[in-house]
């Protein structure tokens, strides 16, 4: 393999790989935010409410 080939293939594959990572990060980000994040936040709010209740009981 010649140096020119290494440079062109190497740079090309770097851009292809990170380009695919860009697209997949957008894709998974939008799917997760659409279908999962709200549920997670609800659970976190429930946990926060339980923790607050326990803390207030401890204060009494």
């Amino acid at each position, binding site marked *: 393999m010649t140096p020119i080939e*290494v440079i062109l293939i190497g740079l090309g*594959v770097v851009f292809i790989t990170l380009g695919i*990572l860009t697209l997949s990060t957008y894709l998974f980000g939008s799917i997760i935010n659409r279908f999962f994040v709200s549920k997670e936040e609800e659970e976190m709010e429930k946990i926060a409410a339980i923790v607050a209740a326990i803390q207030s009981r401890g204060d009494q």
Partner: protein
Amino acid sequence: MLEIGLFALTWQSIVMIAIGLLLIYLGIAKNMEPLLLGPIGFAVILANLPLTGITAAPTVEVGPGLLYIVYEELIATGIVPLIIFLGIGTMTDFSPLLANPKTFLLGAAAQVGIFLALGLAIIIGFDLNAAASIGIIGGADGPTAIYAATRLVGDRPEIIAAVTVSAYSYMALVPIIQPPIIKALTTKKQRKIRMGKMRKVSRIEKIVFPIGVTIIVGLIVPDALPLVGMLMLGNLFQVSGVMDRLSDVGGNALMDIATIMLGLGVGFLMTGDTFLQLETLKILLLGVFAFATATAGGTLFGQIFYKISKGKINPMIGGAGVSAVPMASRVVQKMGQTEDAGSHLLMHAMGPNVAGVIGSATAAGILIGLIA
């Protein structure tokens, strides 16, 4: 018979001991990468004191020297650079990249420096394997540079030593090397651009990211998997929220042990007869070229982002596409605040900066796959 080391000193060993003292001075007095330059400097002194046998390969009569064992078992095998990558993973926050995934491409653009330096090294007279090792300096990532060099030129310690010293030196010199290049490729008006607040990234996204990156990179560039896989494993420890003990060990104790071993191993490579050569000087100069063109490549790609976004993206963040985290981001933040005190570019620059870590590891894997 008792042999006195003093009478066996050569001018090469005296020069190398002076270099060892200089590295210790830079680490302690100037605070330049002290955790690394301290052990390296001390190991250089150890390696160049005559008649100690500390760097000796095993013979029929005598066992191997300490530094020989450290280098052969821990550095040449790639174990220590990979453990350091795991530690880096535990300390890296990919949220800015997840909030703005297109900055992955700025991290890719900064890898131009690797390939331009490879081309220049070939023109100067290095063979393809050596040129690829030298090019990796442009990734501004010490562990990646060592890992790639041991794979590409494992039988030539003089090149591995020069590449390692060059990579770590320029990482420490990021605040000096980058600003004039970024400034030359941007206008005052562009440097003043403020960027908006980033979106909040959910915990699930943070957990899926390291697993997804590992699978995707592993499928496309298998030779990059050891580096990227360890980086992402360390990151999974951190973001999972339930592996704090592993994250703590990986980012602290294990990382520190690996750093000490790395210092000793690099010191082993820096003996007078291997390091004091014209090739070393050439590699150090090519390293500056690699690093400078990497910064320029990222900044110029930042200009494309600036045009496409109609002026909303500050092109300086492209300059942070090299993987010197977080120094390159801090440079961009400081340059932004020099022009406009109310500008906060740090987190925006962290996106391309952490993308650069993945980019340089990917580029190293590609070169290993194509050449080694």
